[in-house]
């Protein structure tokens, strides 16, 4: 990573509105041609971060570097950055052609060149023949394509995307994810993508920035943040996870539920209290006697690829994804391999997440864009 050039850098950015801290000491480096996702629940500051990069907002303190130069107060119209807005913000008084040509027209590009480049853009987003179409007569997906074309025609170094897929239905969203990824590869520019959808973030990004309460929680590759989350918030927000209180007895030895387990983590103080993350797919259900931990099955849901089984272990409910069927009421043993265990330091999010006692609620919250702190 270090040999790659940083195209954008945020250093200690802080922003407050009416005394409320929206961004709290945000620092972030983004390399050229990278696909970076800002991920977090609504109100976490991801859109504000995007607005700072776009030039709609000046930070209260901290610096924004673009290609090594400070651009804190450079207005949006002078930045080599373009944005795709959440509701697209297409000009209702202009047709498809005029919308896409807008950026070139205000820069007084010759008419012939505009014509040529709009044509290329329409081809890129598969909207050939739509030139004269009125914006109000386009479907959501088509409006999305016009918004993409209108932004990238200006050949920005960075394209900012503010939850661009939120307004589309699931099927279309999947298609657009692939298409956006292709467009990014074709154009070879940096994408900074804002979303609250963790699946979208994992499948599209080179680098994911998990944010909450105005702070960056974790920066890493999708694999990093899934396999090695830094705290309970990240572990819970990215995918499903069982987060259990544990004690680090020694290097490679952790005690949970009264049982000492082998693990691959080290570097903690002896007997340090920790959060232990175990992903549902990493737990095997075995015969009672063969298990390291024992519990009672309280719910079984068939999901096609696998079963989702909730096991009550001394009042703490584990979620387990397995292809083997169990029955509600079965007394079962749980088997966990050392590499399935990930140890995290205690944080302010400890104890807030990772228990599946209120299982159905949790599903609702995760699929809800307004997902916030509603733990009970």
């Amino acid at each position, binding site marked *: 990573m270090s040999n790659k050039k940083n195209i954008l850098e945020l250093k200690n950015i802080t922003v407050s509105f009416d005394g409320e801290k929206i961004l709290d000491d945000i620092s972030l480096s983004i390399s050229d041609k990278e696909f970076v996702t800002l991920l977090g629940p609504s109100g976490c500051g991801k859109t504000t971060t995007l607005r700072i990069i776009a*030039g709609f907002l000046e930070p209260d303190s901290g610096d924004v570097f673009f290609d090594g130069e400070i651009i804190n107060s450079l207005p*949006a*119209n002078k930045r080599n950055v373009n944005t795709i807005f959440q509701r697209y*913000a297409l000009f209702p008084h202009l047709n498809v052609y005029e919308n896409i040509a*807008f950026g070139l027209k*205000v820069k007084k590009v010759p008419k012939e060149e505009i014509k040529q480049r709009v044509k290329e853009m329409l081809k890129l987003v598969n909207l050939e023949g739509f030139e004269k179409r009125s914006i109000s007569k386009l479907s959501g997906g088509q409006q999305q394509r016009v918004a993409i074309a209108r932004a990238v025609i200006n050949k920005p170094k960075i394209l900012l995307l503010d939850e661009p897929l939120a307004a589309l239905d699931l099927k279309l969203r999947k298609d657009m994810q692939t298409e956006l990824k292709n467009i990014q590869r074709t154009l070879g520019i940096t994408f900074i993508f804002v979303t609250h959808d963790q699946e979208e973030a994992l499948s599209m990004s080179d680098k994911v920035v998990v944010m909450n309460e105005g702070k960056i929680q974790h920066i890493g590759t999708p694999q990093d943040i899934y396999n090695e989350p830094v705290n309970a918030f990240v572990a819970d927000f990215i995918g499903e996870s069982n987060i259990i209180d544990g004690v680090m007895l020694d290097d490679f030895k952790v005690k949970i539920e009264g049982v000492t387990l082998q693990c691959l983590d080290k570097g903690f103080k002896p007997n340090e209290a920790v959060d232990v993350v175990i992903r549902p797919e990493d737990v095997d259900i075995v015969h009672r006697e063969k298990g390291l931990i024992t519990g009672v099955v309280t719910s079984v849901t068939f999901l096609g690829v696998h079963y989702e089984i909730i096991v009550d272990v001394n009042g703490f409910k584990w979620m387990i994804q397995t292809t083997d069927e169990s029955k509600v009421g079965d007394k079962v043993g749980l088997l966990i391999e050392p590499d399935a265990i990930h140890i995290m330091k205690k944080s302010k999010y400890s104890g807030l997440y990772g228990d599946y006692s209120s299982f159905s609620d949790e599903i609702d919250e995760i699929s809800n864009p307004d997902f916030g702190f509603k733990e009970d």
Partner: protein
Amino acid sequence: MSSFKQKLLNAPYAFWSFVFVAIPLLMVVYYTFTDKGGAFTFENLKILLDKKYISVFAYSIWYAFLATVICLVIAYPLSYIISKMKSVFQDTLMVLIMLPMWINLLIVTFSWKEILSNNGIINSLFEAIGIGKVEMLGTSFAVVLGMVYCFLPFMILPILSSMQKLDKSLIEASEDLGATKINVIKRVIVPLTLPGVISGITMVFVPSISTFYISQKLGNGMIILIGDLIERQFSVSANYNVGAAISLVMMILILISVAVMNRFADDNDKGGA
């Protein structure tokens, strides 16, 4: 709801419209095309081709046009500035703008007559600083000023409301695409607030062209507009037929101008804000 019930509910309105709108209009048409004896004639309209009347019509249109343009020049930037303010200030300014509308037009006009008169506050001030008295009443300046003062709120309110409804992300989008402040105004704000401008223009132009009170009081009898002509035919000459003919011509003039305006609005309002 059954259609009979609907019709029943509409009845008072239909009755009202018939008695107080349709019948008077028909009477205007009737009087226009009859002489004092009630016989059919074109004479009343022919009289209006006289130079004297033509010039009154021309002046009325000219003054109304001036007042409309001045209102627009004041109202548009003002609305833009107000729409950018915090909502508390916006509300306060809205009340201040509407305040003159709550005062009777006659009282407002009379007040202006006092202010502009030879012994009024402005001339007293001019005298005190040595400029000397300036005759203001009876000039076209006074009449247009009165129109602008009385009808300015009707220009501001529709424009302001279209500015407030404008999606702010469109402005950000145009800045994002490289537009300068002037380009944002020219290419996004103006086209999207045009419907407000059109209705503002209509709402100032129509009362301006038909006013008689402002021109009588501030024109001091020196400036005669269509409204004055009509008023004189009815109250001084008691010539209902010619009065009706002038009214009819004025109504047609207004209808034409509104139609032209709406046509203009339709062409530019694709989709709306």
